[in-house]
């Protein structure tokens, strides 16, 4: 902690100002302290006296009406002595200020009294006599003999129908009224006095010490009984003390309340206040001194630091900045000072670094010349030239053994053509400096070497060349690579110029310009030459220029686009369709993805004219559509025709059957001999008519069945039935036919076979048809029906020993009107529809039907009926 003069000065001024200010204000406060205290106390006392006055008035006001009410209550007049006692006891308990009550009859005999005292005769007592006479009596306040408490007796007549029937009397104690009031602490020596209108003490904080209850002669009592309120100081109270009295009248009663406080107490409080003021002042001065000291230090310290820092800088120490953190002007000053030091230090450091770098680079260049791959030399002018100095790289580059060997040869020896050396040195002499001249040189062993040579001519004051300083770089390899690159470039250029695919580079932007195009592109777009294309906008080749923006937006968004079909136009406006692929090229030569931050420089793309292809495709599409349309039309026509056919067939079959009704019916009548006897010849003829009519009927029925099936009008009617049901309905008919031809009909059914769930009528029709066929095409032998089952199907098969069927005919046997083989044989009449219908009925139910046969040995027809109903027939 270091005081310097500046901080001392500041502190001194500060402390002086504070002491003077605080001292003056403290002195003033002390001067007024007594007045302040007195006023404060008297205000408080007066306020308090007012509250006591209010309370006393309120409590006194409630006693008298209560007693009046009690005296007037009819209850008291009519009640028994015990009930009266109960009533007055209750009233007394409710009003603590009432010390006792009695009720007496007109003779002065007490009927009841509160408490446990003996009933007396009060006829001699004056107050009783007054009340007996019909008047109320409120006595003066007097001290009760035993307890010395101030009491007032209120005596009231009890009146019934205008006649006095008894007396009610009660003692009211003021001490009790005051107890709560007096109990409040208002200071050790202060007292509260309540005086009645006659100047007598009603209540007193120190009742027992009061020598004389009549205080009417005290000036404060006179004032308060005159209805005034106020404060009186310095008089002698009833206890002989010098006091400060505050007084307040109780206007409702004509009484007064005094609060008297010894002056000695007030002096003591004033003394206390003064002590407090002095202590506070001293504390404030001390705090101010401390604050002053801190502040002076705050100001003075950084200035001191700045001063000492300046000294350090003056002595050349730039490493320690000033440590001042405040943000005020001193802080700014310190900060500037620090910046100054920093720049000073930086300049000094830079100077030092430069000198070091200089040294280093000198060193480096020396070693560089020794170690680099670039040959460094100095040689003399003249036709041949001699080396003055060479670096190791040069020696190595030209394949010499040592520096010494190199220094011994002529410069011209390194040239493939020594004349070139002359030309070059002339050029250097003329121009002073030649950069990167490519020279055809050779190594010691004659290997050619291409060198990039930079040389400066060092001249004397008269302009004569003293020597040449130069560097040589071996660029033989690089030249080779460059050549290869050039060749490959050439190749690609030829490629792009000869292909049929247009290649371009364009700028982005709303319209876009062509930067580069190949001949194919010029041709595709129908321009005269490349130049013409480069002069137009890219948007010009679009049929709708807006499409160009759409396309370039897409390329920008994706980074590329492939095989986009664009509606373009040629120079003469001919529309073309082109397939275009493009990619964006960003700054930095990168053809890159969209995340690259670089700006888009170009779009590179290829373009193919696909107009012809599209036309061909379009034609193909139209053709296909036309075909589809045609097929649709034809299909609908066919459907219509099919519908007509079904309707026609249904009607026809009805119409055809009607005449057959008569033909068959009458023929049968005659045939059965019901119309009279016929001879054998007639019988034979009629039989022919009959069988042919029946055949015709079958044909018609078959046609109708088929037409209904084809029209989709046949509905399956499923039901459950047993195999034996089915067989018993089929066998009798077939058995009859078989017997007529002398054939044996047998059948076998697998034991415990399941019940069928199928269309019974249709299944039966199929079975009859197959069995009928078997009988029809079998001339001798047997026909066997076998019914079996698997987990999923019932299998019905009918085997005969008939004429059999050709293998090729087996394939068509289920087709309509394809009665095979035996059709040519007389006696095998059939419609040729039965099997076609059977096949339809079986397949509708989800089953299969097929035939196996050997010509001449017999056939087997088999069909299946699934156990489960098929969902879509």
């Amino acid at each position: 902690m270091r005081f310097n003069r500046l901080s001392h000065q500041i502190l001194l001024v500060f402390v002086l100002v504070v002491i003077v200010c605080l001292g003056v204000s403290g002195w003033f406060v002390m001067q007024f302290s007594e007045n302040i205290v007195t006023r404060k106390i008297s205000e408080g006392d007066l306020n308090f006296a007012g509250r006591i006055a209010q309370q006393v008035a309120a409590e006194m006001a409630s006693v008298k009406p209560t007693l009046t009410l009690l005296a007037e209550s009819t209850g008291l007049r009519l009640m028994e002595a015990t009930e009266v006692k109960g009533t007055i006891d209750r009233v007394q308990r409710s009003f603590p200020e009432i010390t006792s009550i009695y009720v007496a009859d007109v003779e002065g005999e007490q009927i009841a009294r509160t408490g446990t005292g003996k009933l007396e005769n009060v006829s001699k007592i004056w107050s009783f006599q007054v009340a007996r006479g019909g008047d109320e009596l409120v006595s003066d306040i007097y001290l009760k003999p035993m307890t010395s408490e101030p009491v007032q007796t209120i005596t009231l007549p009890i009146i019934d129908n205008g006649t006095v029937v008894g007396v009610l009397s009660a003692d009211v104690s003021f001490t009790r009224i005051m107890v709560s009031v007096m109990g409040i602490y208002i200071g050790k020596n202060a007292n509260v006095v309540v005086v009645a209108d006659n100047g007598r003490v009603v209540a007193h904080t120190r009742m027992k010490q009061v020598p004389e209850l009549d205080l009417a002669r005290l000036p404060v009592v006179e004032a308060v009984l005159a209805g005034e309120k106020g404060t009186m100081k310095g008089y002698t109270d009833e206890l002989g003390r010098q006091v400060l009295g505050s007084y307040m009248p109780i206007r409702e009663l004509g009484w007064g309340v005094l609060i008297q406080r010894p002056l000695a107490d007030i002096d003591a409080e004033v003394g206390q206040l003064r002590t407090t003021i002095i202590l506070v002042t001293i504390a404030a001065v001390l705090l101010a001194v401390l604050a002053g000291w801190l502040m002076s230090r705050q100001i003075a310290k950084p200035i001191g630091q700045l001063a000492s820092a300046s000294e350090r800088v003056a002595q050349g120490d730039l490493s320690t900045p000033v440590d001042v953190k405040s943000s005020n002007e001193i802080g700014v000053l310190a900060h500037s000072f620090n910046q100054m030091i920093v720049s000073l230090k930086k300049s000094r450091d830079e100077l030092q670094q430069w000198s070091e770098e200089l040294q280093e680079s000198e060193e480096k260049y020396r070693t560089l010349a020794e170690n680099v791959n670039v040959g460094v030399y100095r040689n003399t002018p003249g036709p041949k030239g001699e080396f003055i100095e060479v670096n190791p790289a040069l020696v190595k580059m030209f394949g010499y053994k040592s520096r010494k060997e190199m220094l011994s040869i002529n410069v011209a020896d390194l040239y493939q053509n020594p004349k070139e050396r002359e030309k070059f040195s002339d050029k250097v002499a003329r121009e002073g400096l030649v950069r990167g001249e490519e020279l055809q040189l050779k190594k010691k062993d004659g290997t050619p070497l291409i060198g990039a040579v930079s040389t400066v001519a060092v001249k004397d004051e008269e302009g004569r060349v003293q020597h040449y300083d130069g560097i040589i770089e071996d660029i033989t390899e690089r030249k080779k690579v460059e050549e290869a690159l050039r060749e490959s470039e050439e190749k690609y250029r030829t490629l792009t110029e000869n292909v049929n695919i247009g290649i371009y580079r364009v700028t982005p932007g709303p319209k876009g310009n062509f930067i580069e195009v190949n001949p194919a592109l010029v041709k595709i777009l129908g321009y005269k030459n490349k130049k013409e294309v480069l002069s137009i906008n890219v948007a010009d080749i679009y049929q709708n220029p807006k499409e160009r923006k759409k396309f370039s937006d897409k390329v920008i968004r994706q980074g590329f686009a492939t095989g986009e079909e664009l509606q373009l136009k040629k120079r003469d406006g001919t529309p073309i369709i082109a397939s275009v692929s493009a990619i964006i090229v960003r700054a930095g030569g990168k053809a890159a993805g969209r995340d690259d931050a670089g700006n888009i420089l170009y779009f590179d793309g290829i373009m193919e004219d696909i107009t012809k292809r599209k036309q061909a495709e379009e034609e193909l599409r139209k053709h296909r559509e036309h075909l589809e349309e045609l097929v649709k039309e034809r299909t609908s026509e066919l459907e219509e025709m099919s519908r007509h056919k079904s309707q026609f067939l249904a009607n026809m079959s009805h119409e055809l059957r009607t005449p057959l009704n008569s033909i068959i019916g009458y023929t049968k009548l005659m045939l059965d001999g019901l119309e009279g006897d016929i001879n054998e010849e007639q019988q034979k003829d009629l039989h022919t008519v009959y069988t042919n009519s029946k055949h015709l009927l079958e044909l018609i029925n078959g046609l109708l069945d088929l037409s209904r099936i084809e029209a989709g009008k046949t509905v399956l009617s499923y039901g459950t039935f047993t195999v034996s049901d089915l067989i018993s309905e089929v066998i009798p008919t077939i058995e009859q036919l078989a017997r007529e031809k002398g054939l044996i009909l047998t059948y076998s059914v697998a034991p415990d076979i399941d019940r069928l769930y199928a269309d019974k009528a249709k299944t039966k029709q199929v079975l009859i048809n197959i069995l009928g066929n078997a009988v029809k095409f079998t001339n001798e032998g047997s026909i066997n029906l076998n019914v079996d089952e698997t987990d999923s199907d019932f299998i019905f098969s009918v085997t005969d020993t008939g004429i059999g069927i050709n293998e090729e005919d087996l394939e068509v046997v289920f087709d309509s009107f394809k009665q095979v083989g035996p059709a040519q044989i007389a006696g095998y009449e059939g419609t040729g529809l039965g099997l076609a219908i059977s096949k339809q009925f079986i397949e509708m139910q989800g089953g299969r039907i097929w035939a196996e046969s050997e010509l001449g040995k017999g056939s087997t027809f088999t069909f299946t009926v699934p156990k489960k109903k098929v969902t879509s027939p």
Partner: protein
Amino acid sequence: MEQEGAGKKILVVDDKEDSRRLVGKVLRLRGYEVIGAATGEDAINMAQTELPGLILMDIRLPGGIDGLEATRRIKAMPQLAHIPILAMTASVRPEDMQRALAEGCSGFVRKPIDIDELPRQVAEHIARASSTD
């Protein structure tokens, strides 16, 4: 030949005379008394006056009242409702048969009629009708 039809009257309704005659012949051979009607109107009138034991009714009849309509009207008359009516039709369409049953026919006779089968069907329906009387 047994005479199961003795004393029983059959009304044959068919617009074609030869058809009526054929049915009449076949049934008369069995002893039935056969009367004929060519139109629906005649059929209804004759049913009321003759009170046949059974009616053979062709479905397709010319004029305003076809066989179905005639059946419906006869079945609507309380005094005739008990007479069994067999529909005769050359149609094999199931829907035609169903319609006939719905109008109150007791069964069908398919055309061309089977002259052996027809008397059996007639006898069966008469027997069934009288047993429920």
